[in-house]
């Protein structure tokens, strides 16, 4: 290595690294056994039946290795650097934003704000938009199917804004009661905040209809897409939602990154929330002016590798095909419902007319934690408890459920393993 400055500039775009993993699952629709080979966790944990993707999905080598490669070859802080390494890093970070824009079919990359996850996304909307625009008596309408992330932020700003939290109930089938939802809409409703797919039961909500109804009443709508984004093709313009959030770690990307989408003119009108570097235009001790979105909402050094890793994950699932993923999840959900329905003494928690990717199980007489422990002893990883949806559990009269959730690497054998383990648990406990 010589230090005499020679003018061989650093390449602006190094060639893709040699060890780039192959995507094996892409040919002829989605072959979950092939997809599984893209996920090193299964190689390192032989026999693992992973049915907890709704809590967090595993990561393909395409994400793990490319993020490592990014740190090896292109890392530097973004935005403020003049030198080329930093420009390259910035390009990749802003390129990730464009990848997300395409994934959601947003009109502009400026409508994409990187956050830590769905939780921070909803908190950002509450603390920025909510604190600025909600008046005493204004109503925020949620549903009984919400995750705590879409309940607690509204409670936290309730006192300061005077908002009223209104809850639309589920019907007997476990789906949203659309008539009751509509009946709760009024001119006082300023925001409808609903999940796209209920994480505790798998119910899909008719968010297009809910968006139309919300807008007819002059309300904005926030859609929590945590569980939907990994399973359904999502088009924020077709949905016509005002806000959409999802988490990277549930969509086969790294932890620490998520997305808040908001319509450009709404974002432009929102005051900043967190303050710091990168989100300012000019600072004096007396007065500070702020950048335009999305930078106004990204204070401090962002999770650069997280954003880039998320983009790799989205590239990966786009390569598999989002239609193919949807079809796979539908098919496997159907197989799961059929299989579990045949087991005596096992009850599926109802999920309305349309369930996807999540099978929430109640075995009367066996506590969910005991059930999950026995399943774990059979290498079947599921989640047990309230799934951050305590109010829904209260409504259903359950202490909790045992939840199996599906991902692109699951196949019918995983469901069969689940069924066998459930039978073994029943034998033990009854």
């Amino acid at each position, binding site marked *: 290595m010589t230090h005499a400055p020679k003018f061989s500039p650093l390449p602006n775009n190094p060639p893709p690294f040699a060890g780039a993993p192959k995507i094996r699952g892409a040919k002829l629709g989605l072959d979950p056994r092939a997809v599984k080979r893209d996920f090193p966790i299964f190689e390192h944990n032989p026999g693992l039946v992973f049915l907890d993707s709704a809590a967090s999905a595993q990561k393909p080598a395409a994400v793990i290795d490319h993020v490592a490669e990014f740190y090896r070859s292109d890392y530097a802080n973004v935005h403020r650097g003049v030198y080329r390494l930093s420009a390259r890093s910035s390009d990749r970070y802003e390129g990730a934003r464009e990848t997300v824009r395409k994934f959601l079919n947003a009109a502009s990359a400026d409508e994409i704000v990187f956050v830590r996850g769905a939780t921070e996304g909803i908190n950002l909307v509450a603390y920025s938009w909510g604190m600025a625009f909600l008046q005493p008596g204004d109503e925020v309408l949620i549903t009984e199917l919400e995750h705590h992330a879409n309940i607690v932020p509204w409670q936290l700003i309730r006192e300061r804004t005077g908002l009223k939290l209104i809850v639309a109930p589920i019907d007997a089938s476990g789906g949203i009661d659309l008539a009751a939802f509509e009946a709760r809409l009024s001119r006082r409703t300023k925001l409808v905040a609903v999940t796209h797919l209920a994480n505790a039961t798998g119910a899909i909500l008719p968010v297009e209809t809910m968006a139309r109804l919300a807008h007819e009443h002059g309300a904005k709508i926030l859609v929590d897409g945590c569980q939907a984004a990994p399973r359904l093709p999502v088009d924020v313009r077709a949905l016509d939602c005002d806000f959409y959030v999802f988490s990277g770690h549930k969509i086969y990307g790294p932890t620490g990154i998520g997305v808040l989408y908001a319509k450009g003119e709404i974002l432009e009108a929102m005051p900043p929330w967190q303050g710091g570097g990168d989100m300012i235009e000019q600072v004096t001790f007396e007065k500070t002016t702020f950048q335009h979105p999305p930078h106004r909402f990204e204070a401090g050094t962002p999770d650069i590798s997280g954003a880039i890793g998320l983009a790799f994950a989205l590239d990966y699932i786009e390569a598999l095909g989002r239609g193919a993923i949807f079809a796979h999840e539908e098919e496997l959900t159907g197989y799961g419902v059929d299989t579990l329905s045949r087991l005596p003494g096992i009850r599926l928690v109802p999920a309305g007319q349309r369930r996807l990717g999540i099978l929430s199980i109640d075995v009367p007489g066996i506590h969910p*934690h005991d059930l999950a422990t026995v399943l774990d*002893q059979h290498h079947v990883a599921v989640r047990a408890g309230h799934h951050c949806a305590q109010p829904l559990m209260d409504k259903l009269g359950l202490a909790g459920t045992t939840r199996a959730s599906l991902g692109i690497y699951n196949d019918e054998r995983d469901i069969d393993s689940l069924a066998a383990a459930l039978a073994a648990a029943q034998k033990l406990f009854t």
Partner: protein
Amino acid sequence: MDARELYQDIILDHGRHPRNFRELPQATNLAHGHNPLCGDRVTVYLELDGDRIKDLSFDGRGCAISTASASLMTEVLKGKTLAEADALFKGFHAEVTGKAVPRLPDALAEDMERLAPLEGVRAYPTRVKCATLAWHAFEAALKNGAAGTVATVKTE
């Protein structure tokens, strides 16, 4: 470890048919325990006579592990002095968390033996909380008197 090592017959039996599962109207001390992870709740009732535990009971809802553990606890602690109860708690806690078990008075050896079926949770870190929920509530009841302050069992 297989399921039967954790869920031994004695656990399953106490899980299904918990002993001393009732309110204690004459309780001198009580406390609620709550495991926020799973929403399980237990209330432990104590009747103290000086520094001796005259009677002891519990109610609430929980998994097989936490129910069996509460049930065994009430059996073992009934009639003990507070010092003995404390020694048993320390011993049990060390046992289920896989820490070095302190030397206990010989008189308590048999009681420790009766708690031994719960040792299996050691291999299930997330279940240790279930096994210790009632014990933490017991400790809190001693501190609280009859006030019934909620003692939230924390992650071990």
